[in-house]
């Protein structure tokens, strides 16, 4: 690579990195506890393990569970019934200030066998909530989320330009060797080599993070087109008194016997129509478990009214989520996610150090850019 092109790539790497680094530090630092949110919630008592009971006994009535949740929170509306296929012994009930409120106001865990309330999640409270908000939108709502998405795109540009600069800045001994002559060379080689070793992981987590920042626009697009079509042609206004969520769940399961319920939206919620339950069914293989099939159930009759696959852009969003969260391969995968996250923080800090040293370093040879535009030490090949 000639000196001028190297300089252009260097500038791209410098500026994309400089702009996004402080936000990436925020995201990688807050992301670390979020990888382990389930374990942390459990340790804090926010999440419970169902007690051991006779498994052969009958299942609790879902209608009774929903009625209990309504009785405990008479001023709130049930928005969703939620399942975790790996925990068939639990039912979760999400309530909001209204049925279509964006935020949850209560999140209750019930024993699916006895119907007993096991736990109420402290919604919107605690340190984990602060960490989550910082990571998702910096307490700045949708614009905060979209801003972080833009910073994520800069990270991707920084990674690509960094990979272009890798070879010209590498020492003669090749990959793996850390030059120890000066402190700057040590940091440079550590930055360059760890950056390359973790490149694909950071690229994937960064890019899927960007996709996740678009979840609100992606879902609104689907809600205003395909979901609107699906609910428009359906009859029934859901005013009948005897709406049974249990019947709706049973009907959805009968319609999709090879799938498992992921969650069910209640009539009036943004994920369904005014007169219908919408059961979102997930597959039972690791890959199809990430995807959802909505089954619409008439709330008045309890019959399945329509079933429709989600469009590609919603499926892409759903598939990008596990690749961002690292929650699809047990605790060992989460630990690797955590270690790679720490290594990425190291790359961010070493990059910042190299830039600071170049501009405010004590050595004038380095401060004046001994390798700016000229061949850097040890390269280019």
């Amino acid at each position, binding site marked *: 690579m000639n000196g001028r092109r190297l300089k252009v790539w260097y500038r791209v790497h410098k500026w994309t990195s400089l702009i996004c680094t402080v936000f990436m530090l925020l995201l990688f630092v807050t992301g670390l506890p979020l990888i382990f949110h389930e374990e942390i919630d459990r340790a804090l008592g926010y999440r419970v393990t169902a007690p051991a009971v006779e498994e052969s006994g009958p299942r609790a009535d879902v209608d009774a569970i929903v009625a209990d949740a309504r009785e405990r929170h008479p001023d709130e509306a049930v928005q969703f019934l939620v399942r975790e296929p790996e925990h068939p012994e639990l039912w979760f009930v999400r309530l909001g200030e209204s049925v279509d409120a964006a935020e949850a106001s209560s999140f209750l865990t019930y024993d699916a066998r006895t119907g007993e309330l096991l736990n109420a999640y402290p919604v919107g409270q605690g340190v984990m909530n602060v960490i989550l908000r910082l990571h998702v939108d910096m307490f700045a709502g949708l614009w905060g989320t979209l801003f972080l998405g833009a910073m994520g795109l800069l990270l991707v540009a920084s990674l690509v330009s960094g990979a272009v600069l890798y070879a010209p800045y590498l020492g003669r001994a090749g990959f793996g060797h*850390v030059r120890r002559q000066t402190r700057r060379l040590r940091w440079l080689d550590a930055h360059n080599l760890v950056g390359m070793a973790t490149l694909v992981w950071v690229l994937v987590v960064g890019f899927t993070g960007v996709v996740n920042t678009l979840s609100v626009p992606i879902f609104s697009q689907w809600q205003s087109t395909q979901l609107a079509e699906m609910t428009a042609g359906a009859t029934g206004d859901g005013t009948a008194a005897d709406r049974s969520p249990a019947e709706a769940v049973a009907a959805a399961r009968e319609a999709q016997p090879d799938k498992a319920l992921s969650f069910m939206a209640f009539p009036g919620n943004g994920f369904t129509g005014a007169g219908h339950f919408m059961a979102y069914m997930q597959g039972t293989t690791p890959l199809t478990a990430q995807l959802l099939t909505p089954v619409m159930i008439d709330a008045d009759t309890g019959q399945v009214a329509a079933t429709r696959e989600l469009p590609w852009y919603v499926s892409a969003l759903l598939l990008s989520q596990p690749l961002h969260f690292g929650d699809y391969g047990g605790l060992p995968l989460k630990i690797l996610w955590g270690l*790679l996250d720490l290594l990425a923080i190291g790359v961010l800090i070493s990059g910042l150090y190299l830039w600071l040293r170049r501009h405010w370093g004590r050595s004038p040879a380095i401060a004046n850019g001994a390798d700016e535009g000229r061949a850097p030490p040890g390269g280019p090949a």
Partner: protein
Amino acid sequence: MIGSKRFARVWGMPLVLALVSALGLVAALLADGLGDALSWAALALPTAVSLVITIRAVLPGRA
């Protein structure tokens, strides 16, 4: 010959790490059990290589 040797020294390991990382990211998504184990083994490689480099960089010595 010298050119290809240099190429292997510079790009051999990064390419292997990139492919193994991609394999590790996908394996657990496609299958449980063996898929999970393959993911752990595959993602442990870039992690271990990075840790070795970090240790080499922070070890006391000539600086």
